């Protein structure tokens, strides 16, 4: 780990001032400290934001939820409103990492976490995300866990978060505060596909701070859930995952929100699946037909071809699990 200077921000204003000077924000630190130790991350200054007042979960006017950026994963997962209004969020959190890490990691940090691509984490390997222009060792190397959707010539790394998949499905909004004031970014625009700048991962300006993630209101009842498929039953990243939320009224699906994880360079929203569900009556055939388009546009590599069918099956199963309970 390279040396760095350290400051604790006593207030949001002082955090932003330090951020503007190039300081790097640290909240839970579970990704950042690990990557600093691997010398993948080399911040000159760390700005500890853990004392800022961003720890509340509040019901917003229209009935959605606003989750403060510094709420820990375990607190968010245990929160009564999160569990009753958005089970898909609580489940995605509980299926992530370990109890210890969930006690440390925050909601804001979770959506900022960096890829688990082993070549990104290995400073002796080429990686366009870590060092632009050096190449992508993953495409020639071992890429069983890598992305099949949203990839580019430059990068095939997956986004590792589970709760980000739930946020993507539910069309959450990210609240930001920066030197130029507040702004809100739709979740779909917050995380960036690699394109030819895989080193740029979020639509953040210099020194901007995530203050909250807002999940919008939906017609009730909204049934939802998260399914995660992985190499071991617990404490593992997703090979594939599906976040599904459905509102059924009068026997007809009126709202369908679906996204997939473990397969994309960003959480992968599935509008074709959603469209296939809207206006239809729940049935076995409907789940299979809708999930059939889950991997549309996939560009698998040699070792991850299995993800195409696994993704379709993951989505189909989760549609059935959520749909049959409506």
């Amino acid at each position, binding site marked *: *780990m*390279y*040396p*760095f*200077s*350290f400051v*604790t921000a006593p207030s949001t204003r002082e955090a932003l001032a330090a951020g503007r000077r190039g300081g790097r924000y*640290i909240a839970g*630190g*579970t990704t950042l*400290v*690990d990557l*600093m*130790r691997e010398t993948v991350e*080399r911040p*000159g*200054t*760390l700005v*500890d934001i*853990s004392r800022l007042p961003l720890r509340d979960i509040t019901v917003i006017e229209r009935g959605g939820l606003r989750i403060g950026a510094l709420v820990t994963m*375990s607190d968010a997962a245990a929160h009564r409103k999160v569990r009753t209004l958005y089970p898909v969020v609580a489940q995605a959190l509980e299926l992530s*990492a*370990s*109890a*210890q*890490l969930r*006690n*440390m990691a925050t909601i804001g940090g979770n959506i900022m976490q960096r890829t688990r691509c082993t070549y990104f984490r290995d400073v002796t390997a080429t990686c366009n995300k870590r060092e632009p222009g050096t190449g992508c060792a993953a495409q020639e190397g071992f890429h069983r866990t890598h992305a099949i959707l949203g990839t580019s010539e430059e990068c095939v790394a997956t986004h590792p978060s589970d709760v980000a998949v739930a946020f993507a499905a539910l069309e959450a909004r990210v609240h930001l505060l920066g030197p130029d004031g507040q702004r809100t970014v739709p979740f779909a625009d917050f995380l960036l596909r690699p394109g030819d700048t895989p080193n740029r991962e979020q639509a953040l300006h210099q020194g901007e701070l995530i203050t909250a993630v807002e999940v919008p209101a939906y017609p009730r009842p909204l049934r939802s859930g998260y399914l995660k498929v992985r190499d071991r*039953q*617990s*404490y593992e990243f997703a090979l594939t995952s599906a976040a599904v939320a459905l509102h059924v009224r009068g026997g007809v699906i009126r709202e369908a929100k679906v996204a997939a994880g473990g397969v994309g360079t960003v959480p992968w929203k599935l509008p074709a699946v959603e469209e296939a569900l809207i206006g239809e009556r729940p049935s076995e055939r409907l789940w299979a037909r809708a999930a059939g388009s889950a991997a549309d546009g996939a560009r698998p590599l040699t070792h991850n071809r299995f993800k195409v069918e696994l993704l379709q099956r993951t989505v189909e199963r989760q549609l059935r699990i959520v749909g049959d309970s409506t």
Partner: protein
Amino acid sequence: MSTETPESAASPPARSPSTPSRRTFIATTTAAGGVVAAGGLVAGPALLGAQEAAAADASPSSRVSLTVNGERHIVTVDNRTSLLDLLREHLDLTGSKKGCNAGACGACTVLVDGRRVNSCLILAVRLEGAEVTTVEGLARGERLHPLQQAFIDQDAFQCGYCTPGQIMSGVGCIEEGHTGSADEIRESMSGNLCRCGCYVKIVRAVEQASGRK
């Protein structure tokens, strides 16, 4: 155990102080012992970029006041020092173990302000005012904590290396109330790996201490 990271290159302070140099940082000063301890060579200047070197010269270390097992410590540590290294290398509390040093194995689990965390991923300088409990702080005198006793009763370890982390994680698991079933305990304890494979008995020990059995 990592052998290449700068922080582990720091030699155990009080026992073998090395000659201070420009790149040698004062590793820790404990108020309790009053010992000024020098760490080893941290990194050669040639390895450092200009920006990093500037940062290092600015303020490579910080002072922090925290409570460990009920005892208050005021220490000055290299900013890179993890809580785990502070405990093991500077406070001589070697119960918490360094397995992966990457938050993947759970051997370093301790409680910070009552919640179980991976001490290898916590920078010590962030713990101003925190209360830390390690496995050394569980027993009351000669009386073991119920979970420590349960690990003995259930024969829940072989080599013992992961055991302090398992016990601290188990204490957290019980506190959090994730002991409704053996399955729930297994899921809640999945952040603690045991290469000897004592999982079945570890679950039984947590059940025993939680009063389920």
